[in-house]
């Protein structure tokens, strides 16, 4: 009997700390890990993994990271978000490229009253969409406004746009033309081009005829590469400067750097920015995964890190407490220095950068494709509070 009692006591001593401890902080990450866009999604996954590893413990426990693939499909993203919130009981979901997918996840966040930090979708509809959605990293307004404002001052006055014909392109065009007008630029013409158009030459010829100083390509991925190639072929590139809405390192690798040499693009971050720690992060990332982090990967890292910091400050993982700790708090990490989350609409703002693609001979290090040619302060680059008619 004595023995049994002793055993009981011992087992109680062993079990109780585990039983008494609270659940660990759980971070969910949704990205595109299959299909052609997985090259972008993998970077986000790596960013998330590194953040959790580097951060260590919060509230006395290791952070748990759960990664899901939505294959760039909004329907699947919706399911994944539901699983993460309900089954895996995550406290926050981060990343999620594809605007429609992010909007679906945002709805799930509201339904489950838990946080969603959108780092990878551009649509401005996510800004102040609901009280559980925090918009991190970039947004379409910021991309278009940055090139519009900076470009009108530095690149020329006459601008021609070639726009991807869907909601994303239309939004970019709207913000871009507004920014251009404000800086005194002239919009001499625009073409809406269907996704996946193989031959951009008819549009390039049209653009050439309008004699612009700058050609803006409001498209992404293969469309960006193919339209630039046509501009090179028709000699338009020798005459005008080309500006992109989005340009990834993988696009440059895929089409060859000489295609994009001298082109401009806006970004919220690049691994060569002079923020303290950026270089170190990029080197560690490179060592681990064999490639340089793109700005989405850095943003996922930063969002996870700052979320955990907020949990630490709030001493709780309660969404309201975490939000309170995040709001208006100025943080400095390698991603944003400084950056902060606006209390009025939960938008994370930071500096915006203008990058220019180097000449092939100037690339001294692997994937050092860009040089930084300009910056815009957060207040200029991001939409003013209430710009979309929503605030808290």
């Amino acid at each position: 009997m004595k023995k049994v009692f002793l055993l009981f006591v011992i087992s109680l001593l062993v079990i109780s700390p585990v039983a008494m401890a609270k659940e660990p902080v759980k971070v969910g990450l949704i990205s595109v890990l299959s299909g052609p866009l997985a090259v972008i999604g993998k970077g986000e996954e790596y960013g998330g993994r590194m953040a959790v590893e580097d951060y260590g413990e919060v509230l006395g426990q290791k952070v748990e990271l759960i990664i899901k693939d939505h294959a760039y499909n909004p329907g699947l993203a919706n399911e994944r978000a539901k699983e993460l919130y309900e089954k895996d009981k995550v406290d926050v979901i981060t990343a999620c490229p594809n605007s429609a997918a992010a909007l679906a996840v945002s709805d799930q966040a509201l339904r489950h009253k838990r946080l969603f930090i959108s780092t990878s979708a551009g649509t401005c509809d996510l800004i102040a969409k609901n009280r559980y959605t925090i918009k991190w990293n970039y947004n379409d307004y910021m991309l278009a406004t940055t090139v519009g404002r900076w470009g009108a001052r530095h690149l020329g006055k006459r601008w021609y746009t070639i726009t991807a014909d869907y909601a994303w392109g239309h939004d970019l065009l709207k913000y871009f033309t507004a920014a251009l007008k404000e800086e005194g630029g002239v919009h001499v013409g625009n073409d809406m081009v269907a996704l996946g158009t193989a031959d951009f030459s008819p549009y390039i010829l049209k653009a050439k005829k309008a004699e612009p100083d700058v050609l803006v390509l409001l498209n992404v991925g293969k469309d960006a590469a193919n339209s630039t190639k046509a501009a090179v072929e028709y000699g338009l590139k020798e005459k005008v400067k080309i500006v992109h809405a989005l340009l990834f390192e993988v696009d440059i690798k895929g089409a060859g750097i000489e295609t994009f040499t001298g082109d401009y693009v806006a970004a919220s971050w690049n691994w060569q920015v002079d923020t303290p720690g950026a270089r170190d992060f990029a080197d560690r990332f490179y060592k681990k995964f064999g490639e340089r982090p793109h700005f989405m990967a850095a943003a996922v890292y930063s969002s996870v890190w700052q979320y955990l910091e907020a949990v630490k400050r709030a001493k709780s993982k309660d969404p309201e407490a975490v939000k309170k700790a995040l709001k208006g708090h100025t943080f400095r990490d390698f991603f944003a220095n400084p950056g902060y989350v606006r209390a009025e609409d939960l938008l994370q703002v930071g500096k915006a950068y203008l990058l220019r693609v180097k000449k092939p001979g100037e690339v001294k290090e692997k994937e050092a494709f860009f040089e930084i040619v300009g910056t815009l302060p957060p207040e200029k680059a991001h939409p003013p509070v209430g710009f979309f008619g929503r605030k808290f």
Partner: protein
Amino acid sequence: MDIEYIFAQLFNGLMLGSFYILLSLGLSIVFGMLGVVNFAHGAIYMLGAYAAYTICQVFAQSFWLALILSPIIVGIIGMVLEATLIRRLYAFAHFYNLLLTFGVMLCIEEVVSIIYTPIGKPFGTPGTFVGSLDLGFIIFPRYRIFIILITMICSIGMWLFLAKTKLGAIIRAGTDDSEMVSALGIDISRIFTLVFGMGAALAGLAGVLAAPVQNIFPYMGGSILVETFVVVIIGGMGSIVGSILGGLIIGELITLGVIFWPPVANTLIFIFMALILLLRPRGFFGRAKFFE
């Protein structure tokens, strides 16, 4: 709107049409003779581009070598496909092979994206063709002129081959009645393999030619396949002249749409196809047996 601009655009339409001609020729003769709606055609086109890329990497950027070798390689791959897989389903309804080729398409795309990564590969304009040529009325990129010329040569060659040679006569006869042809003591199954290989080689050639114009990536065949089907439907299944005419019409329609009415530029070809299907379901030069 000045005349030079219009001419340049018309030439662009011609170039775009050239790709459709090369692709639809293959698609059309394969359907005409084998009765196979080849959904893998776009993937085979992509294979041509990747073959060219690989050859250029191995043999010091020799575009000419790629231009000759890639269609041959892709043609052989096509023949192997026919002899091992597609042949087994001739006895069944059309859609069995449709499903099979759809599966083959997915396999080819995935294998290529595993080997070459899904990012795509850079492919510059070959050195000889960099720059533009002044044709008097317009200045047009050399490489695009080259594409138009090659397509002209191939189309005429195909037509001569089918119309004037004995083998061509057998193929034409086989299109009408393959049972009768084999009853005459001709090994029709070898002819089938050859025809499929030819179709694949033409698609491969289109892939090589397209590589410098657009970027090569594993899924590049998907969108162009849709337009090629439109060409085949307009021109008439199984007809060479129909493919050529259909290709030119679609190429020009897309380009002219961009100048005069951009919002419908991409819909225009489908409107045109719908009209053709209403007025003449067999297409311009198709024979009545397929759709009427």
